């Protein structure tokens, strides 16, 4: 019990400290590295509450893929972050409002939880099985593909649209760029490219 408490406080403290460093670090690459540390500690917290599937997916998707690309971009681009920081005071009120709304929502959620009220709204057709009987991967699978199948499909479609959008925006054929066309290379016939000529002596081709 105490071990869990120690682990919780360790994860929580490192998480908060690295979250603060994300916005205060001078070097943008350091910011991204602290963001990764924050993700990692959040995954640790998920493990502590027994949601190991969510923890692993968080690490695989956010730390393993999204943050790598993020780091990639930050390293490649020469962004002047001093300049970006100029408007900090200007955006401050908006940020505070968003933060306040989130905090109020969290308090409401916690209050309903404590009062014992339903969090999900209406009752499900297939209730979530107790986590000590099935693994939580299975528990998520059971509700995700039954009650929430439409929400699941819609989120998949949104991602697909975003992906197609990104491809459409970046795919353009630039004139003057010669690319390797593997299909064309393999498609060539001997007769099209090799000519056998009889060259007369001293005559040339």
């Amino acid at each position, binding site marked *: 019990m105490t071990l869990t408490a120690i682990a919780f406080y360790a994860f929580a403290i490192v998480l908060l400290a690295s979250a603060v460093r994300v916005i205060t670090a001078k*070097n943008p*690459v*350091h910011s991204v*590295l602290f963001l*990764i540390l924050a993700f990692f500690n959040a995954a640790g917290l998920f493990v502590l509450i027994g949601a*190991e*599937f969510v923890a*692993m*997916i968080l*690490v*695989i998707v956010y*730390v*393993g*893929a999204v943050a*790598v*690309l993020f*780091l*990639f971009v930050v*390293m*490649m681009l020469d962004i002047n972050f001093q300049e970006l920081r100029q408007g900090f005071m200007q955006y401050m009120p908006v940020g505070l409002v968003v933060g306040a709304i989130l905090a109020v929502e969290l308090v409401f959620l916690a209050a309903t939880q404590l009062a014992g009220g339903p969090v999900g709204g209406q009752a499900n057709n297939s209730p979530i099985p107790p986590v000590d009987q099935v*693994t*939580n*991967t299975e528990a998520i699978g059971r509700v995700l593909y039954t009650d929430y199948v439409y929400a699941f499909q819609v989120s998949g479609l949104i991602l697909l649209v975003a992906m197609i959008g990104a491809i459409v925006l970046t795919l353009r054929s630039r004139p003057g760029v010669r690319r*390797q066309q*593997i299909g064309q290379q393999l498609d060539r016939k001997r007769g099209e490219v090799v000519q056998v000529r009889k060259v007369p002596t001293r005559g040339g081709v």
Partner: protein
Amino acid sequence: MSDILAQLGTFWADLPLIVRIVVGILTIVVPLLIGMAMLTYFERKVMAAMQLRQGPNMVGPFGLLQPFADGLKLLSKETVVPTQANAGVFFAAPMLTFLLALVAWAVIPFGEGLVLADINVGVLYLFAISSLGVYGIIMAGWASNSKYAFLGGLRAAAQMVSYEVSIGLVIVTVLLCVGSLNLSKIVEAQKTVWFFIPLFPMFIIFFISALAETNRAPFDLPEGESELSGGFNVEYSSMTFALFFLGEYINMILMSAMTVILFLGGWLPPLDIAPLNWIPGPLWFIAKITFVLFCFIWVRATLPRYRYDQLMRLGWKVFLPFSLIWVVLTSGVLVYFDLLPK
């Protein structure tokens, strides 16, 4: 005899949890480090044999002590930090690489019940840890503040992210046949037939992706000597370099262990008959890992390095669609013949 064993058992159970965990970790890490040292020797000897050379044969009998001599030499060298380097990240990168290579071994089952942490999401844990491995390399490339190292780091990042996608889909195919994310259950599901027989194309894709994921030849572009003069670790020397080297080779052993667990039946003997099942499970496991490692070295000694755009094309345009089709095909076959694990 059984009395002594029973006494040992109760003595073990009475020890405090922390002592048991530490002893457990040491029994994995120490043989692993020795195994890694022997792997470098094995690699040099096998490649020498393939190229009709002798290989290391001076230090100790048959040159067996060569890796330890190399290790001592590395330790006694000077650690050089480039003046323009970002010192914190520069030192964090090799430590991270080495650490990640070791922590993944916590969930590997060496035999029936012989596993340090038997967690339910073992496969996902391994996948998560191996996807983190890219950070050590990209941090090293950036912190060195050198163009060769930076190019090597960027190449490594792009390559590892690309091949992870096909590895993920291959793992999904195996999981469809098992119905559990637990590594011990994956091995037990192969009691009737090892998965490399029904899923042979997936086995090949996994092996090739493992080569790319560990930055081994013919996909060793992040450290291409001819164009990047060593790649991401060009500025590292002494112990910091040794940590990268250790990390890379332990990752090789780890990916071989994953191949063995997913496709070659883990600790199970090929046939459950008399002389074969006398050999204890862990020995089978180690023998199979050695075989996969031999294939790693064999590929390195045989094939030339890929061109970078060909490498990306192979990952995204060949492996990804192919493994995606196999996921659909496998699930279709399993549903049609009602073979899905309950």
